[in-house]
C-alpha cells in the first residue's frame, strides 16, 4: 500500500539531495515551465550543468520535457512530490505516536504511589 509510495519518495529525495536540483525544482514550481537556457540565466550555474541536472530530474520522474516549436520546455510532474510529502507526513505521524507513547509511559512512572 504505502510501500510503493515510499519507494517513489526515496527517488524524489535522492534527486533532491543536490542543491542545484532543488533550485531548479523551486524555479520550475514558480514559473510553471522553462527552457534549460532560461534556467541557466536565472541560476548561478552553466547551461551545461543545468542540462545535466534536468536529465537527473527527468530520470527520477520529477520533470517532463515538452517540445514547443524549436525549444524544449521543462515542467514538474506533481505526483512524485505528493508522494514524498506523503512519506514525510506519515513518517512524522508515526514518530508523534511513538513519542506520545514514551511521554505517557514517563508520566506513569512519575505518578506517586
Amino acid at each position, binding site marked *: 500500500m504505502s510501500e510503493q509510495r515510499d519507494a517513489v519518495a526515496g527517488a524524489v529525495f535522492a534527486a533532491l539531495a543536490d542543491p542545484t536540483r532543488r533550485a531548479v525544482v523551486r524555479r520550475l514550481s514558480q514559473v510553471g515551465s522553462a527552457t534549460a537556457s532560461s534556467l541557466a540565466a536565472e541560476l548561478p550555474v552553466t547551461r551545461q550543468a543545468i542540462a545535466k541536472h534536468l536529465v537527473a530530474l527527468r530520470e527520477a520522474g520529477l520533470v517532463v520535457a515538452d517540445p514547443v516549436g524549436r525549444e524544449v520546455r521543462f515542467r514538474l510532474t506533481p505526483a512524485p512530490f505528493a508522494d514524498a510529502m506523503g512519506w514525510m507526513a506519515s513518517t512524522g505521524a508515526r*514518530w508523534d505516536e511513538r513519542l506520545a507513547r514514551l511521554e505517557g509511559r514517563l508520566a506513569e512512572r512519575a505518578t506517586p504511589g
Partner: protein
Amino acid sequence: MELHNDPTLAEEYLAVRRELVLPFTREEAWPLLGDPAELETWFADEVGFEVEEGASGPVRVAEGERFAVVEEVVEGRRISFRWWDPAEPDAETLVEMTLDDVADGTRLVVVELPVQSLPAAPASPGGGPQLAATR
C-alpha cells in the same frame, strides 16, 4: 556531522525530525534507547536486534514487520539504524536517535530520512560511525 544537529537538515534532505525533553539525566535516559526491552515500551511492539553496531533483526511496528541493521551506537548518547520493509527494500530509511543534555533534563531527538537521499550513503551493514559524517 551529526544529523540531529544539522539545522539545514530538513531543507537538505527533507528529513522527519522530532524531539522530546525527558525529565532525566542522559545516563538515566539511555536505557530507553539502549535496551531493546525498553524500546519495546514506546518505539516498537517487538525489537529483535541487540543495540550493537552491526547487529540486525526484525522490528514489529503497528504497520507490520520491518528489518533493521544497527549502524552506530554511542553509549549513553546515540543509536542509529537503517530499516526497511522486506517487501520494499528500496524504501530503506535511516533512523538516528540522540540524547542531548539540556537545562531541564535530556532532549531526545529522532531523525528519519530515506537512505537514498544521503549523498554518500553506505550500502552495506557496518558502514557505521562515518554515516553521520557524510556530506
